[in-house]
């Protein structure tokens, strides 16, 4: 399929995106200097974790939002506003609940003023190709998730786009349905039954990317930028159990966790310097403990291969990585070459009882997360031993966007409560040492 000489359909050059606050100050960039291109006849996957700006990039490409910097062109024409020649498939399906399947599919051409009979012909054809025959008069509410996403595909196909953009199209579906839909789409694509020249999909599912794409672009987070580009030379249809397939998946896992690894000392120095600027993911403390226990237990015995661990815990990387990272921050575990390994204290933690665990957790929290230490210091200094949350929120907002600040605060409240470092009163929105007697 991949022919390097074929025409470039889409060109993204040096795109950056920064969100502004209400007062007009520039905040942390979402995307930084992203360049990529899409050639005719290829499927490209944008792989990244939540918050790496991959959906933002997709919206910039489709013309739904405008980059702060840089330039996008499709078929040589600069994108300036919602672009012709692209159609998007959404994670949430985004169907109009008040329109029937047929009306939903027809909305694109009808809005463009394509005559009714021409529209109907194209719509029925798309419905037929995508396997929705017999459901024309159904409302989206009556359909299962898989059928709804088929409507999403038919709606995109009917406008005869050159490029199909897909924003995590299978991630809201159950495993079986998602697999069927992927296979059906790949079959249609292979057989040339859909008039699309190229597909760009966003995903956080590594296996999905390896299964479908000819080329995988890994986006790294904070700010989103291109981390790596990997060609997938396997022939379609691909087999998940194929050793080559597994190896590629492993490589990508390693890539996505190990990136900071070469400069680890540097990174830690940076983290210390960043101090409060360290954005924390929101994770459940039960999951943290659960994950430590899982890694400690056989068959892993203290060191787990990430793809396997993801499989056995039924987790996507968006669930797995934040857990792993929090453990790494707390120095209870660390990533190494696509594996996650318990540190000695991590192993001790697993063998401890509840109270001991909490004590150890609190120590590590204070030692390794500057925000936790900062909150404790403030509480100690104040005679009342109380401090409003807004104070810390504002400090955090000097380093990160409001959303991230809020999330980080939530995360530290959660971790602090578990470690019994401090209490938090939701009504008063204040930190303190008091817990109800």
């Amino acid at each position, binding site marked *: 399929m991949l022919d390097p000489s074929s025409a470039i359909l889409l060109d993204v050059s040096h795109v950056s995106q920064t969100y*502004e606050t*209400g007062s*007009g100050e520039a905040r942390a960039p979402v995307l930084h200097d992203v360049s990529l291109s899409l050639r005719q006849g290829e499927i490209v996957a944008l792989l990244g974790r939540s918050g790496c700006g991959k959906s933002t990039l997709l*919206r910039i490409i*489709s*013309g*739904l939002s405008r980059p702060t910097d840089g330039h996008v062109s499709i078929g040589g024409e600069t994108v300036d506003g*919602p672009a*012709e020649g*692209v*159609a*998007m498939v*959404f*994670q*949430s*399906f*985004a*169907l*109009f*609940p*008040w*329109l029937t399947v047929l*009306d939903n599919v027809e*909305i*694109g051409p*009808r*809005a*463009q*003023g394509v005559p*009714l009979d021409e529209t109907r012909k194209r719509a029925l054809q798309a419905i037929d190709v995508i396997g929705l025959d017999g459901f024309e008069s159904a*409302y*989206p*509410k*009556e359909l299962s998730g898989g059928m*709804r996403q088929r409507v999403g595909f038919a709606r995109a196909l009917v*406008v005869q786009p050159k490029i199909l953009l897909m924003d995590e199209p299978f991630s809201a579906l159950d495993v079986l349905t998602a697999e069927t839909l992927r296979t059906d789409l790949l079959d249609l694509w292979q057989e040339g039954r859909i008039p699309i020249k190229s597909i760009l999909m966003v995903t956080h599912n590594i296996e999905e990317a390896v299964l479908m794409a000819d080329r995988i672009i890994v986006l790294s987070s904070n700010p989103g930028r291109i981390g790596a580009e990997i060609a997938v030379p396997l022939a379609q249809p691909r087999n998940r159990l194929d050793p080559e397939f597994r190896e590629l998946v492993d490589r990508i896992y390693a890539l996505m966790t190990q990136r900071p690894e070469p400069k680890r000392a540097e990174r830690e120095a940076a983290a210390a310097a960043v101090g409060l600027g360290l954005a924390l993911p929101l994770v459940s403390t039960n999951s943290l403990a659960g994950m430590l226990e899982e890694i400690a237990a056989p068959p892993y015995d203290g060191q787990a291969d990430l793809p396997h661990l993801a499989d056995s815990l039924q987790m996507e990387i968006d669930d797995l990585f934040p857990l792993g990272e929090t453990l790494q921050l707390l120095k209870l575990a660390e990533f190494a070459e696509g594996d996650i390994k318990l540190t000695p204290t991590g192993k001790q933690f697993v063998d401890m009882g509840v109270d001991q665990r909490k004590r150890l957790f609190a120590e590590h929290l204070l030692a390794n997360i500057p925000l936790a230490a900062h909150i404790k210091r403030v509480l100690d200094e104040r005679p009342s031993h109380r401090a409003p949350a807004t104070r810390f929120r504002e400090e955090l907002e000097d380093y990160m966007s409001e959303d991230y600040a809020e999330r980080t605060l939530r995360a530290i409240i959660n971790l602090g409560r578990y470690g019994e470092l401090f209490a938090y009163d939701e*009504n008063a929105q204040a930190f303190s040492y008091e817990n109800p007697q």
Partner: protein
Amino acid sequence: MSMMNVAAAAGRRVLPNHWDLIALAAIMAVLTAIARAYHGIAAPLPAPNVPVITLDYAALPYYALRTALRMFAAMFFSFLFTFTYATLAAKSRRAEMALIPILDILQSVPILGFLSFTVTFFLGLFPGNVLGAECAAIFAIFTSQAWNMAFSFYQSLRTVPRDLDEVARGFRLTGWQKFWQLEAPFAVPSLVWNTMMSMSGGWFFVVASEAITVGDTTITLPGVGSYIAEANNQGRWDAILAAVATMAVVILIYDQVLFRPIIAWAGKFRVELSVGQQVERSWVLELLQRTNWIRRGVRPLFAALRAASLWRLSLPRVLPARVFDSRPVSRLVDIAWVVVVTVVAAWAMWSVVIYVSTELSWSDVGKVGLLTFYTLLRVVTLMAIASAIWVPISVWVGLRPRWAEAVQPIAQFLAAFPVNLLFGAAVSLILAFNLNPDIWLSVLIVFGTQWYIVFNTIAGAAAFPNDLREAAANFRVRGLDWWRKVILPGVAPYYLTGAITASGGSWNASIVAEYVKWKDQTVAAHGVGAYIAEATDKGDFPRIVLGVAMMSIFVTLFNRLFWRRLYAHAERRLRL
């Protein structure tokens, strides 16, 4: 579902700010301008030539029809207003800055206080013609519906799901197409519900506005309200009963033939994609949808409407679109805009003060403040009493599905029923038993509005999760503890929805309820409602302006400082 209107309200700011002040000034200034214009003419209002109201039973169906038609006309204008005003507010940031506070204050202004102004205004527009009086009545109903509907629509426009919005933009729908394909349909469920709720209030206003006296001019339009007014004048109990029965039938027909089908139909516009929830049903809608020839007949009509909704029209860009624009020029325009609005409002406020001060002094302001305080006391006390009585009963009913099913429609019906039809009769009792009007007229204030508390609380109790009930039973939580820790927090958001609606209605009702006529006698209580009503009777405009303004301030503060805070708290902490 009954949450929608108040849920929307709770999302808004809580504390009053300068925008509220500006809005209040603007509204009062418009009223003053009308009153002034009237004074300029200085002649008695030309009484239009209206047929005399007869108490003949045979005339009642005709009167009922006229009343119902007025409701229709008002609803039409309310929709017109909703679609334009709310759309403008939602699409333009600068328009929003001024339009939304105005709407917010208008919601708190006692609409019945308007009546004298609007009658004057419309009679002036059509001198000597009954059309003026009709317009005034329709406008009164309009004011009881439009603000609420516009707010609901505005809220919907601002909360269109992002992915659907992206689909619409991705397919490059024009403004017109997007409005009809996405925004209007998305707003339908909440708009329909708010329309129905407003309609309940509307019956009250249609009755109040059909027979009105401003100064020397008395206007009676043919309708059930005038019929009752005449019956009150003559003290005819049988006629009152007949009118009440007629009204009941009209409301029932409206409900069954108009609103039930529309609500059932609106169900398909709900965005949550899961089936489930209880599906509203309507026999009329089913009849329409399942009858073959009707379906075939309307199909071309729907196809035509759909085609029209897809015309490639762009909506006019009156004002800059809602994108945040940080360029300095835009900032400067923003500042200029705020300055202009503020100056206009300050001037407006000043003109109101000047006007009122021609005849009234500070002592009057103090007196009206005190009267408003009495009314506030009345509203608070009566709401408390009504809650104490009805919440336990409603909880009891709501926890028993079969009872709830039977009682719920009755409570909704009672909420819609214009109890002012009965005020005259109630007053005759006060006179007969020589009761204290300050106490017993107060009862009338919550007479019609208490039902909002009843049916919302029933809905809350019915929706209370069964597992929580079982858990409470399992841990043997009983008696006072059960009320305090289990069921009251559980129904609180629902109760508050009802209570806020009831409180708003009660303020309005006070204008009618504190000053009631029976035969040739007038019974009045001490309160701002009676003050406004009496001033209306005498055509004393400065006093009306003062009374309405004072009441608006009280209502706004009461809503902001009390209800919204409470509601926001309940939403945050107690929503299950």
